[in-house]
């Protein structure tokens, strides 16, 4: 095993060796420094492997041969090995990235780079305070020097501001160290920490005269290195102006080293300083994210993000007493995620010509860069399967266990804001027009670091999966299958489509016997239903890059969701399907803002779920879903509320519904049915589990299921009402989905046997007819080129199959007898006879007939009425879009005839929770406690009567003269033009006069003002950094004196 001192020696040696080379042998100098850095990375790698596998123990390196108090000792434990590996690897890749720049500047720049890396390694390894000070100063000098690498002239000013603050830090640190030495008798960290060291100095040094004050000074100085709020103006200027490669090194490497320095310091400080560290970390985390919202310069935005992430790691460090042995897993998880992501993003930024966020749209030239960009963003926001996700899961659970709810809430709020501006940026990259400049230059020496970062990200994801003790997400079948498609992007789309459908069906067949009847229905809809909708994928030609990985990511999430046993699997699946569906929706033409609002609502809901599960788990790493009911009464009310709101964001209950119309309407033709028909059911599945285990809950005396009852009823009313006033066909369907989900929510909240059966009936029905309608209208929109209903009309003759699909769909939705919609209504009526909550029923009865309004409007304005000139040559929708529709028609009719097939087992299953009030299935008729219903005979009778009357009309009216669209009785001699004769625009004008006041967009206004407030806060916050070096210095002193005053208050 190589002696760890080589880390310092080789770096320094090479730095001086470069001096010997002539000036012109630059390429050789660069090669030597690369080799040195490679060796420097190899050393900690071998140590890390050995330490991790237990073959070696942490080693002390005694410089000058004497034990600590008389000489400086360096330590190489597991933490130090990992951190030095991270630092040296970043250094290596940065040097590789800076090839051109270094070859211009010559060997002196390389030497400074090597010294910087050596200083950071030293900072990590040293156990001696003054040595710490020396390495801090070395880092400062190296950083100021390396800033000049940048070709941005403003880097000079940034460097000077940095040096000013560095001087302040060095003064405070030096005095702190001296007084610590004066009080503690030794400069060695272990000695001061009271660890049984040679001198045996007790823990009491801090109580010595000046010891506490000394520690305080050191604490202030080292925390200032971590760019805390408000003293981080200088850091942001460095991030904005420095060369992106150096910014990567600065963010990843020096951030890491500084954090570990603070961590070492806190070991000797006692636990009351942890609270201070957490507070500073949280403040920095939140305010930096807020200030990042209004940013448009990519590097400054990344600067704010890295400042915030460092704050988050500081919070992790602050919670070390709480985390115990999981501390290293959490802290290093957050740190590694931040370091790899930030380095990768800065390297990407190096490729960009302009600094605007939408300039990154040039990434679209290289699909693998898009994957890298997305991975880094997911890494930062802590989405599965990356380390941040596991780390945050542990952190939140420990915080919830110790009842520290404020930091928990603030962390999640900050992460949500971060997800907001990062994925807004991702939306720009995918959707905004790329800048006019040349396509992205991506030479090998700049592509390699990004590739290594990407591989590192996924590697860390896999590693953290192993270490987490939870299920290793990357090895679960669905997710692995989805990621496989990342590699198959070069295949034509029909091959991938076949593969995807086969995969879904195979997974369903394989896991068939794991499902209980309830989960079987949801699995059927998620997997087999998904496969049917994927059939529509054959209609698109070409490669369709990006569609299949995101679609299968969503289906993977859904597949794991149904099979989840414990809260971790459930939550991981929830986030996977959120991300997958976000990428899917984002593919829509004008879907960017809507996809973002969808993601933010879903992630907000997901974080509520996370808090709910954490509270329920009470400190345990995860909670089996089965014993969700075992939560103590004091907590169960809050757990119910949190989980319920989380699930209701996914089913777009009233107030949380603003994302749905845009997201479902703007998505692509075959994405809308997936998102609307399948994804909404994930929320319902969650609610089923919640109500199944937690049942009726009280909070401050309010019956929570009663509240959901009201929410369901109101959602049904407003969903249907607003659907009637939409001009865009797909928005009408989206609003209709909100209404239908309101019905399902109502059914669930009835908390009786038939209520749940009704909800399930709605789940199945809604999937079938909503997917069918979205597909058919997508086909119509594809053929007619518009989604506005008043522009279409008279398409029944040209698109008969689409008409049939829509006709069957609206008959089913409206609940008119022959089809399965009536079954849902019949069970609904029987269910409400059992409950005592009567008032919400009035709203639901009112919502029922309103469904007719938008249904008739949909089919009349699109298929009936006057055919427009430009649509006279419109062809029928593509075959592959029609096939799923016809399948759904068959399914609907079959489900209408024999609902027993789907509902009988589930009826028995629900009997376990609500024994009385079930249905009895004798023969073909279904009998409930109140009434009976015989679907087959209804269909038969209606069919017979219809045939008889039809035959009678045929007999009486054989030779009807087929006429065309203007052969109508028209008082003004003849109709003017088809557009003026087609009654479609503002179809329910009188209805709007009567009930228009109900359609005021209150919820949308509320959420918009909230977003504007956040932006205003961000804009106000960032005004703090005026750019004047002296102001930054003043901020630092204000921060230092504030902390010192606080410190004096704390010391007993």
């Amino acid at each position, binding site marked *: 095993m190589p002696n760890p001192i080589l880390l310092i020696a080789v770096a320094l040696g090479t730095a001086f060796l470069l001096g010997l080379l002539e000036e012109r042998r630059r390429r050789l100098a660069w090669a030597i420094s690369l080799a040195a850095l490679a060796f420097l990375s190899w050393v900690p790698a071998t140590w890390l492997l050995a330490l991790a596998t237990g073959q070696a123990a942490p080693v002390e390196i005694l410089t000058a041969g004497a034990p600590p108090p008389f000489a400086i000792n360096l330590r190489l434990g597991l933490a130090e090995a990992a951190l030095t590996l991270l630092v040296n690897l970043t250094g290596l890749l940065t040097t590789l990235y800076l090839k051109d720049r270094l070859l211009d500047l010559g060997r002196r720049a390389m030497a400074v780079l090597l010294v910087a890396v050596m200083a950071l390694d030293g900072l990590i390894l040293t156990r001696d305070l003054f040595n710490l000070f020396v390495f801090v100063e070395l880092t400062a000098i190296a950083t100021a020097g390396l800033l000049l690498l940048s070709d941005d002239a403003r880097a000079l000013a940034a460097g000077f501001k940095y040096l000013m603050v560095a*001087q302040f830090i*060095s003064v405070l640190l030096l005095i702190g160290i001296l007084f610590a030495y004066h009080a503690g008798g030794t400069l060695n960290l272990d000695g001061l920490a009271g660890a049984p060291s040679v001198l045996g100095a007790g823990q009491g040094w801090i109580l010595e005269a000046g010891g506490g004050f000394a520690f305080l000074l050191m604490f202030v100085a080292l925390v200032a290195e971590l760019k805390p709020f408000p003293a981080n103006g200088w850091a942001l200027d460095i991030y904005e102006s420095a060369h992106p490669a150096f910014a990567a090194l600065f963010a990843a490497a020096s951030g890491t080293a500084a954090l570990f320095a603070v961590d070492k310091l806190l070991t000797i400080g006692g636990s009351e300083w942890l609270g201070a560290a957490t507070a500073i970390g949280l403040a920095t985390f939140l305010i930096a994210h807020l200030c990042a919202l209004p940013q448009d310069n990519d590097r400054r935005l990344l600067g704010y993000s890295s400042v915030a992430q460092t704050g988050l790691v500081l919070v992790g460090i602050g919670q070390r007493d709480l985390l115990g042995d999981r501390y290293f897993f959490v802290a290093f998880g957050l740190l590694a995620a931040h370091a790899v992501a930030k380095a990768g993003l800065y390297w990407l930024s190096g490729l960009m010509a302009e600094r605007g966020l939408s300039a990154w749209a040039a990434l679209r030239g290289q699909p693998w860069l898009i994957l890298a960009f997305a991975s880094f963003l997911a890494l930062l926001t802590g989405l599965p399967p990356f380390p941040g996700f596991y780390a945050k899961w542990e952190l939140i659970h420990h915080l919830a266990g110790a009842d520290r709810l404020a930091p928990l809430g603030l962390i999640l709020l900050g992460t949500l804001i971060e997800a907001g501006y990062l994925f807004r940026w991702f939306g720009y990259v995918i959707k905004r027009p790329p800048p006019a400049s040349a396509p992205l230059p991506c030479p090998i020496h700049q592509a390699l670091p990004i590739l290594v970062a990407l591989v590192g990200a996924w590697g860390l994801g896999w590693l953290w999966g192993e270490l987490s003790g939870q299920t290793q997400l990357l090895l679960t079948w669905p997710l692995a299958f989805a990621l496989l498609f990342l590699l198959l992007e070069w295949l034509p789309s029909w091959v991938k489509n076949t593969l995807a459908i086969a995969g879904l069906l195979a997974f369903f067949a394989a896991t068939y016997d794991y499902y209980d009847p309830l989960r079987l229905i949801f699995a059927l809809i998620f997997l087999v239903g998904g496969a049917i909708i994927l059939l529509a994928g054959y209609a698109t030609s070409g490669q369709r890059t990006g569609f299949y990985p995101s679609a299968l990511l969503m289906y993977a999430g859904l597949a794991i969701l149904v099979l989840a046993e414990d809260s971790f699997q459930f939550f991981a699946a929830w986030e996977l399907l959120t991300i997958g569906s976000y990428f899917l929706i984002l593919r829509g033409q004008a879907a960017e803002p809507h996809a973002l609002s969808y993601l933010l609502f879903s992630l907000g809901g997901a974080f509520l779920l996370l808090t709910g599960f954490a509270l329920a788990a009470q400190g345990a790493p995860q909670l089996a879903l089965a014993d969700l009911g075992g939560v103590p009464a004091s907590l169960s009310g809050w757990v119910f509320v949190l989980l319920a709101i989380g699930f209701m964001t996914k089913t777009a209950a009233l107030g949380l519904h603003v994302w749905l119309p845009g997201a479902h309407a703007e998505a692509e033709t075959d994405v809308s049915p997936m998102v609307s028909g399948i994804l909404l059911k994930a929320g319902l599945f969650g609610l089923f589990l919640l109500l199944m285990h937690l049942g009726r809950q009280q909070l401050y005396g309010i019956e929570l299921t009663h509240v959901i009852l009201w929410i369901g009823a109101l959602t049904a009313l407003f969903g249907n009402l607003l659907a009637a006033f939409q001009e865009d066909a797909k928005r009408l369907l989206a609003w209709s989905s909100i209404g239908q989900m309101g019905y399902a929510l109502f059914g669930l909240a009835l908390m009786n046997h038939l209520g749940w059966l009704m909800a399930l009936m709605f789940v199945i029905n809604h999937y079938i007819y909503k997917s069918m309608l979205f597909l058919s209208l997508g086909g119509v929109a594809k053929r007619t080129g518009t989604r506005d209903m008043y522009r279409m009309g008279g398409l029944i003759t040209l698109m008969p199959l689409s008409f049939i699909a829509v006709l069957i769909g609206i008959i089913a939705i409206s609940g008119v007898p022959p089809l399965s919609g009536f079954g849902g209504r019949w069970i609904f009526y029987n269910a409400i006879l059992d409950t005592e909550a009567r008032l919400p029923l009035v709203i639901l009865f009112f919502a029922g007939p309103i469904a007719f309004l938008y249904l008739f409007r949909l089919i009349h304005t699109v298929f009936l009425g006057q055919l427009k000139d430009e649509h006279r040559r419109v062809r029928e929708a593509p075959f592959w879009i029609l096939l799923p529709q016809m399948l759904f028609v068959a399914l609907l009719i079959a489900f209408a005839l024999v609902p027993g097939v789907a509902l009988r087992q589930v009826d028995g299953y629900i009997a376990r929770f609500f024994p009385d009030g079930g249905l009895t299935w004798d023969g073909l008729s279904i009998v409930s406690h109140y009434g009976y219903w015989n679907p087959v005979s209804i269909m038969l009778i209606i069919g017979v009567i219809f045939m008889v009357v039809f035959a009678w009309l045929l007999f009486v009216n054989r030779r009807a003269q087929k006429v065309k669209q203007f052969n109508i009785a028209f008082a003004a001699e003849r109709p003017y033009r088809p557009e003026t004769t087609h009654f479609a625009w503002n179809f329910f004008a009188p209805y709007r006069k009567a009930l228009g006041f109900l359609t005021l967009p209150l919820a949308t206004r509320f959420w918009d003002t909230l977003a504007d407030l956040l932006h205003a806060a961000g804009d106000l916050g960032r005004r703090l950094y005026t750019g*004047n070096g002296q102001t930054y210095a003043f901020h630092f002193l204000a921060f230092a004196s504030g902390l010192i005053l606080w410190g004096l208050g704390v010391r007993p």
Partner: protein
Amino acid sequence: MPNLTQIALATGFGLILIGFYGALTRRSLLRIILAFTLASTGVNVVIVAIGYMRGRTAPILDEAVTTTTAVGRIIDPLPQALVLTAIVIGLGVTALMLAHAYRLFLRHGTLDIAAFRELKW
């Protein structure tokens, strides 16, 4: 009569405060750099003052102070060593600040710190 250590500490801290005051109020870069050198000198004085013990001599082992008797006769050698490194580092940082100030003056033609405010918000 305050003893020598207190005087030294007082002057050290005084110099540090003067340095900070100068750095915060003066607009010219050179004056700021000068203020910082004052502060670091102050720190060095404090370092040396910390190690001082009454009635003891400098920690130089020569024929007057042999290795055996050194323990009783010399003051605490550690701060003496540290101050050397501190001075060297102070020199390095000051040199770098001067280089930055010079390049800034070449580019902007002014030494007023308020002039370099392109990087803000």
